[in-house]
């Protein structure tokens, strides 16, 4: 009788578990629970009455599948943040050449060319000043737009760090409650996994379930985010790197992630939304706007152009008359801060058209004007950066920005499918025994292999095509 009563109690527990599974079917993070039943020994003479007993709850969550989804979701967060922000960056580069720096550069060279034909013509001189002013403003505008994007990313980094801290707090609370109970509560466990899902969109981490049931969350580099009942609160700051010693101490600061002990852990964040934001801010934008170690391509171009034009003009005279005045610089910029050249580039406020010097050092009446016009398509090293003319250099900047966005967008699209696959696979193995899935898993594996083989054939054919149109 006692055995029958016990069995009924256990079956009642099993029914409760099933009801719980049904009730939580759509709860984020919930995995079906299963009550393990075991037969109790029966030995009437020894007083063992048999029956059923509960051997504890199991859930159908597979740690590997969970980790696979988290890891792939982290990469999706990374590519999504990259794609969104590089899209903004590339939009500032007009590749059509009808506006912005590209157009203003062409207009300046055209004005030099027209001036070289009529060096004394005041209208031609004024056109040069107007074109130079427009170019300086185009540089200022581009720099300003990119700096605003940097500032927006700074805010996103800060907000993402806050979200990470909030989620880490939820996991820490789970650990507190877990230590107070002997068995995991399905509802709380569902919240934990929902929190981990959310965290995986934001940053890269790994989890270790401790023997006491608490979950330890470690960032990729090993920095703990949550251990037991303790939380490592992260913070974001914007500062100029001091290690290695800065070459450009007044450059635009970059983003840093700091742990609760004051350690800079930025380099550990290389995935998730935060990783994508940091990469776009500290690599892509820093490459253009500069940081403590690099001047930035936009500043390199602005300074290179201004220095070359000024040097040519200042080496000549305003006319061929004996004792004619030396030329005046066309551009100014803050030379004390080369990493801010684009933002401070301006038309020399004191120059007038008549102070432009068309005569070169050898006395050729339009030698300087011709040299300036030739900067559009230089034949020597003057007027080049890394072997490219200024127009080509800007084109390369635009192309690089576009390529960053194209790569990030393509990666994002592919990664969405990887996450969908990983999530679907995880869901397929939730609620059924892995043994039952063994056959299906092997079939999948064979299908992947077949697909990979066809792709190898395709790749080889693609290479053959390239060889056929580009003879070595």
């Amino acid at each position, binding site marked *: 009788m006692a055995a029958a009563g016990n069995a009924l109690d256990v079956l009642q527990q099993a029914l409760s578990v099933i009801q719980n599974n049904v009730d939580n079917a759509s709860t984020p993070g919930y995995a079906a629970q299963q009550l393990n039943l075991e037969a109790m020994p029966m030995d009437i003479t020894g007083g063992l009455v048999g029956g059923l007993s509960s051997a504890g709850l199991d859930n159908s969550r597979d740690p590997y599948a969970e980790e696979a989804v988290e*890891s792939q979701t982290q990469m999706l967060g990374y590519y999504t943040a990259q794609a969104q922000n590089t899209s903004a960056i590339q939009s500032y580069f007009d590749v059509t050449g009808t506006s912005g720096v590209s157009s203003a550069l062409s207009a300046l060279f055209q004005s030099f060319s027209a001036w070289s034909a009529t060096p004394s013509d005041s209208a031609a001189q004024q056109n040069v000043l107007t074109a130079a002013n427009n170019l300086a403003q185009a540089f200022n505008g581009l720099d300003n737009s990119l700096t605003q994007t940097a500032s927006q990313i700074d805010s996103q980094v800060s907000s993402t760090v806050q979200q990470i801290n909030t989620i880490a707090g939820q996991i820490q609370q789970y650990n507190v409650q877990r230590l107070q109970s002997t068995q995991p509560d399905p509802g709380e466990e569902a919240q934990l996994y929902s929190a981990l899902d959310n965290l995986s969109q934001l940053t890269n981490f790994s989890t270790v379930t401790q023997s006491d049931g608490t979950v330890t969350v470690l960032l990729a580099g090993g920095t*703990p985010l949550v251990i037991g009942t303790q939380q490592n609160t992260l913070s974001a700051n914007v500062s100029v790197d001091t290690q290695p010693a800065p070459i450009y101490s007044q450059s635009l600061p970059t983003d840093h992630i700091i742990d609760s002990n004051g350690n800079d852990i930025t380099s550990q964040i290389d995935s998730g939304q935060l990783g994508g934001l940091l990469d776009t801010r500290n690599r892509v934008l820093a490459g253009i706007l500069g940081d403590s170690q690099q001047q930035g391509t936009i500043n390199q171009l602005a300074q290179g152009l201004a220095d070359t034009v000024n040097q040519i003009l200042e080496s000549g005279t305003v006319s061929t008359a004996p004792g004619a005045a030396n030329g005046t610089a066309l551009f100014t910029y803050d030379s004390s801060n080369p990493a801010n050249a684009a933002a401070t580039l301006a038309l020399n406020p004191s120059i007038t058209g008549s102070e432009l010097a068309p005569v070169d050092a050898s006395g050729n009446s339009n030698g300087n004007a011709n040299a300036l016009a030739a900067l559009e398509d230089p034949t020597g090293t003057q007027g080049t950066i890394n072997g490219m003319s200024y127009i080509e250099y800007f084109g390369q900047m635009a192309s690089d920005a576009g390529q960053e966005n194209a790569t990030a967008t393509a990666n994002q699209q592919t990664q969405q499918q990887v996450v969908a696959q990983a999530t679907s696979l995880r869901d397929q193995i939730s609620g059924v025994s*892995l043994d039952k899935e063994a056959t299906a898993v092997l079939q999948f594996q064979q299908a992947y292999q077949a697909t990979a083989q066809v792709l190898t054939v395709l790749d080889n054919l693609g290479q053959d095509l390239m060889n*056929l149109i580009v003879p070595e």
Partner: protein
Amino acid sequence: MCGDPAQSIERARDGIRRALKQWNAANLESIEASCLLLQESAAALKTAVDLLSQGKAGAANGLQPAILGLRRDISAMSRLVDACAAIHRGLTLRVVGALPPYDASGQTAGEPQAAPEHVLVG
């Protein structure tokens, strides 16, 4: 043999794109259908290679962007298949009861390690 290599390449790219879309669903039927589409793409590419191999230099003009695009498509598809195969390989090892030799991010995984000691505030 007659035909336009540009059209063959475009047909191959179309097949790869459709194969890629099949992977929105993680089921065996979709993956097998995707494989068939890729086989059709391979056949179309083989035609393009044969046409160009016949030495029709004029036919190669202007094909480079399409071929580069094709190779990008193949690369994206390969990345997707590799990632899914890696996940599944780990799953297979789980099914047969062995520890996966690497985790989902491709790193070697052993027994879970104890968390390193850190001074925490909180």
